[in-house]
């Protein structure tokens, strides 16, 4: 039989069909329902914002890789996902230069500066958002466009605030009334209480997305469709969202009420704001979350604790972005101290 010099390689000689581009593009696909929802709720302007964020992310990545003399890998879909997630974290009426600058920052200083995909310590999209929020707070916190078929707050009141904003304002009034009795007009107090009780009944609007907020965060329903797909594909691990959402629910139930322990409304806190988007799509970012089972639990719960601290005590109605960014920084430590038990190390 004819012989030749055969090529050799180390085992295993098979691989499953998974690859980084495949993972990234399927993550992008899982975000499509929420994106379509954004365009439906907020109109064509949302489509432009999303397009510009994605285009800027891809262009920045390609430009920097060219400058660094590295192979251009924008086809792997990771810059696409970063641009998409950044857009989902923007209000509907931001000027068009906001998504462009935000994505450029996210890719350049959130990802490429550390060496590109796999080396970034923090979620680039969230870093981009944090940068925008710090630099142009007015553009980033004004919600004026009511979603189709709904109102910004999700309830029928004259206000320009998102559900969490409105809740914070109302709770501030009540807090003020408690600290300095008599100084707050009775009418204001009863208005605040009415807002809170109405907000707490607005689950339907929150679930379907008929509320104000950032482009991709409003419809829990559309986000869960994508999340279910990611879970089915095992691209995300249930431990992070369960730890995250579970701890937010528990803590807001325990401490979120104005009438003592366990009078809060956990369901409202879970549905409102960007928690579902953050818990399923951003905290689960592979590069910036732990790889150990126990680390994932701690990471998810840590995100939940920080989110609740910010929402209930901090001066800011949201808390998802900063909680994830802060927990991103703990990941190397978490991985180091939550190593799985090596086979045979524990028991006989």
């Amino acid at each position, binding site marked *: 039989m004819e*012989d030749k010099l055969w090529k050799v390689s*180390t085992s295993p000689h098979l*691989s499953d069909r998974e690859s980084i581009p495949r993972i990234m593009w399927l993550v992008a696909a899982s975000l499509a329902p929420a994106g379509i929802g954004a365009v439906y709720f907020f109109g064509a302007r949302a489509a432009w914002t999303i397009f510009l964020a994605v285009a800027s992310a891809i262009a920045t990545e390609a430009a920097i890789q060219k400058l660094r003399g590295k192979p251009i890998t924008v086809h792997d879909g990771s810059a696409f996902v970063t641009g998409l997630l950044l857009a989902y974290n923007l209000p509907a009426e931001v000027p068009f230069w906001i998504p462009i600058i935000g994505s450029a920052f996210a890719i350049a200083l959130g990802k490429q500066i550390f060496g590109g995909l796999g080396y970034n310590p923090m979620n680039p999209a969230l870093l981009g958002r944090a940068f925008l929020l710090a630099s142009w707070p007015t553009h980033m916190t004004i919600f004026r466009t009511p979603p189709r078929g709904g109102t910004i707050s999700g309830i029928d009141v004259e206000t320009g605030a998102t559900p969490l904003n409105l809740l914070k304002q109302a709770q501030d009034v009540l807090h003020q009334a408690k600290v300095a009795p008599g100084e707050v007009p009775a009418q204001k107090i009863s208005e605040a209480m009415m807002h809170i009780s109405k907000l707490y009944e607005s689950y339907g609007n929150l679930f379907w997305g008929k509320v104000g907020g950032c482009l991709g965060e409003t419809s829990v329903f559309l986000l869960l469709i994508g999340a279910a797909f990611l879970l089915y594909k095992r691209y995300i691990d249930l431990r992070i969202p369960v730890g995250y959402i579970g701890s937010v629910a528990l803590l807001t139930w325990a401490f979120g009420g104005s009438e003592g322990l366990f009078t809060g409304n956990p369901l409202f806190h879970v549905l409102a704001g960007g928690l579902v988007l953050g818990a399923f799509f951003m905290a689960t970012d592979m590069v910036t979350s732990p790889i150990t089972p126990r680390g994932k639990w701690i990471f998810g719960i840590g995100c939940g604790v920080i989110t609740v601290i910010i929402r209930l005590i901090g001066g800011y109605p949201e808390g998802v972005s900063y909680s994830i960014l802060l927990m991103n920084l703990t990941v190397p430590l978490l991985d180091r101290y939550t190593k799985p038990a090596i086979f045979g190390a524990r028991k006989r």
Partner: protein
Amino acid sequence: MELRLFARRSFRGGVHPPENKSLTEHKPIEILPPPAMVVIPVQQHIGAPGKPIVQVGDTVRVGDRLTEPGGYVSVPVHASISGTVKAIEPRPHPLGTSVLSIVIEGDGQDQWSPEVQEDPNWQQLTAEEIRDRIQMAGLAGMGGAAFPTHVKLSPPPNKPIDTFILNGAECEPYLTADHRLMLEYSEEIVRGMAIMLRILRPKRAIIAIEDNKMDAVRVMREAAGKEGLNCEVVALPVKYPQGAEKQLIKALTGREVPRGGLPMDVGCLVQNVGTARAVYHAVQKRRPVVDRVVTVTGRGVAEPKNVLVRIGSSFAYVLEHCGGLRDGAARVLMGGPMMGIAQFTLDVPVVKGTSGIVVLSQEEVRERREAACIRCGRCVDACPMGLMPTAIYHLVKHKRFDEAQEYGVLDCIECGSCAYVCPAGLPLVHAMKFGKLEVSKRMRAAS
């Protein structure tokens, strides 16, 4: 007591590669004629190599011993065809190195040594005599690891064996040699097992088979019943690496072999079905290991089949009897695609541990370009040993061997589950092998 809500017998991690066993699983074992020449390496087992006791020019018959064991952890090799010793020199070995080998040119007679004959009085043998016979018949684990069988069968008195496990899991994709052996030689396997049980006297005996071979489960159950063997035949869920010793013990008994330890540390002993059959041959028939069943398969082979082939036959010879290679044949492996060793030439001999010759086509191999780790954690989930392959990979890559040791590089069983699932195509097993080598070197230097 461990709370087990879902009492499905299993172990942590693992993967489900495509089995591709249908290429050969229904094909009865075909006996290949003795080749015109065999190359028999003096070392086909783990341990000390044997010392040749023949010289160039000597005539030998099938079953004649060619070497003296090089120590206690060593077994001899035997002539697998009759003819003349042509050369005693280093030749390529399927493990990748050159090994001193005895080359025999056949006389076409296939004359067997008169010593190879049924022993009617074998029942009178003591445990010591049985072990001796097993050693001198050249038995080394036929599952692939090739550890001398008699050593495994001699647990020290402070490590009594209470559970004997016959391993018919055959979890490697593509391979069907053990499957066919169980279907066609169940009686001989069970007899070999009975001999081992006789010298070990464990409380419990189990035959473990993956549940993609339910026909083998039935046949083995029947054979064990006929032989009057007191043992369970267990069908295990298909999951790679179910047949790895530690994972198999864990799935069957819930016990974990301690780190750096051996199955006997938890009272277990695992033997492969092919080894059991060879024990029967060695003890009852006085027939040494001169042949074995090999699965020749993969989409690079024209006619995949299971063959009974003489030890020392070249891969080229075996492949010729399987219709030769197809265009696009890209990789020749000894063993299965998950743990098999790639060969650079077909001029290597079938050895005692050759469970398969797998020729993969270009499409099956799927060579990949390395990308950066995206920390997806799939390797951590897949590792049946509870390691963090990506972490060890990076430590080894940066020559941080002390930390790699801390992360358990020495516990790696090289099953390949991590690299199989890695979306970045990282050579994780390669790093593990290198890391193990370096860490052991340092440990030896330090002691």
